[in-house]
């Protein structure tokens, strides 16, 4: 086979699943009077960071109630107990810190 001759080869990539676009939750009109959960993913000092963010809210937006909430286990596991609590008692969530 000469180097200039065209040849046919197979594609080595696997088969991707279809991606179904998921809608975002409606946004809040204001955070004032609302409860915002600061969800600690328990990874690399993310708790220290979120507690600083909690302090920021207390200083700059005292009308926002914040709840610092570590997830129930490692970030690799789903955590329906925590999500249920936030759904029932909170209005919004800030999850961090991913790396």
């Amino acid at each position: 086979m000469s180097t200039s001759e065209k040849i046919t080869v197979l594609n080595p990539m696997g088969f991707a699943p279809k991606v179904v676009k998921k809608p975002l939750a409606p946004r809040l009109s204001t955070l004032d009077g609302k409860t915002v959960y600061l969800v600690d993913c328990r990874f690399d000092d993310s708790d220290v960071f979120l507690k600083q963010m909690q302090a920021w809210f207390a200083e700059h937006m005292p009308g926002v109630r914040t709840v610092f909430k570590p997830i129930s286990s490692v970030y690799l596991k789903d955590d329906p107990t925590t999500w249920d609590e936030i759904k029932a008692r909170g209005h919004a969530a800030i999850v961090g810190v991913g790396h």
Partner: protein
Amino acid sequence: MTIEAQYGVPTVAMHTDKFDRVARSVAAVNGMAELRQVFVPQPVMGKSPRELRAYVDGKDPLTGRPVMQEVIEGLTTPLDGQGVGTIEYDRSTPRLVEADSEENLHRLFMESRWTDYLPIVLPTEERVAAMLAATRRKPDEVVGRMRPTHFREAWEYTVEKVAVNAVMAGARPEYFPVILALAATGVSARGSTTSSMAAMAVVNGPIRLEIKMNAGTGALAPYNHANATIGRAYGLLSQNLQGGSVPGVTYMGSMGNNYAYNSITFPENEERSPWEPFHVQQGFRPTDSTVSVFSGCRSTAYTLGIREKHWREHVRNMLRGMDPHIPPVFVLDPITARQFIDRGGFTKKDALIDWIYETARMPASEFWDYQLVQNYLYPRATFGEEPWASKLRAAPDEMIQMYRREDIHVVVVGGETNGYWRIMGASYAKTVSVDDWR
């Protein structure tokens, strides 16, 4: 993503800026490209509260806008319509690449990141057909699914897709059942962790001899065609069949790992081992052919021999040098395996593992302060998961076991040129029958 999509709670995800591309990519493949994400500088780990407060008060390094302004806008700015509604994206993979010259195809494969940047064998129809002839399985049969991380979607692959990657690696058709078994594990050899993991594959049973693998001198080195190309095929099939392994997107290993070139692929030296083979420990018969996969392979400790006077202390020192998050796999030359019997009376592998389990100890306070233990074991301990919950109750100076007994393993390999041996920090994943893929 779960709390936003499934629970309907408006959410902002915080990340460090090094994870910009991967965070957006993961959101997109999970159908949430418009997820509100805000970035702070890397690293967060090890920074003082004052330094992290500066992150909060500062600007998103990617947008230059104040972090807290982005957070609040992310929770309150109405959706512009793009984030609403459901759409399906078709991402089908064509069977063939458009015909071209060999030179151009080699360039295409490299630029598409389908290779490991070493020369490959182009997977022509003829070469792939020859590979497929080495199994009774049909080309369109689904072998499994694989993904580089927990957060990404798993991609699916067939026998033919595995054959394409086996050809690219330079493997011979007679190796194909082993390569199919590796693919069937679903365990990626191109896992994306910042810790730079690699895989290890241990072959057991008659297939080792049938395809002339090397379990003796230089078994873990580039001196055997089967060892070399089976291991390379495992890497190539992992990166291509899982949907890629691209730094910054689908691969985040900070330093990378040179073991990834052939995934430490070797057969156990069953003929010279004084113990039962690894696959028999996992419930297979000696006459079965199998491949066992491990992941991790970042840390290694080594020494020569098992000294008469202080061998216990020497092994303890080696174990204490390992990160306690990843368990030890003792990789022993047959000379060393017999020395462990001579010194410690470990006539069974299980007896040696029992001893390792009891020997690998450190003070509880030191154990719990390891960063990886904090990240992955401490959260499980605090919610009662054993054995870590009990370890968490230990006094700070109490010498606690570093590993779970069931996570410690021993394999024998090498040519007895000397009694060198090593401990590999690696987690056993699974053992798969090769015979099922013949």
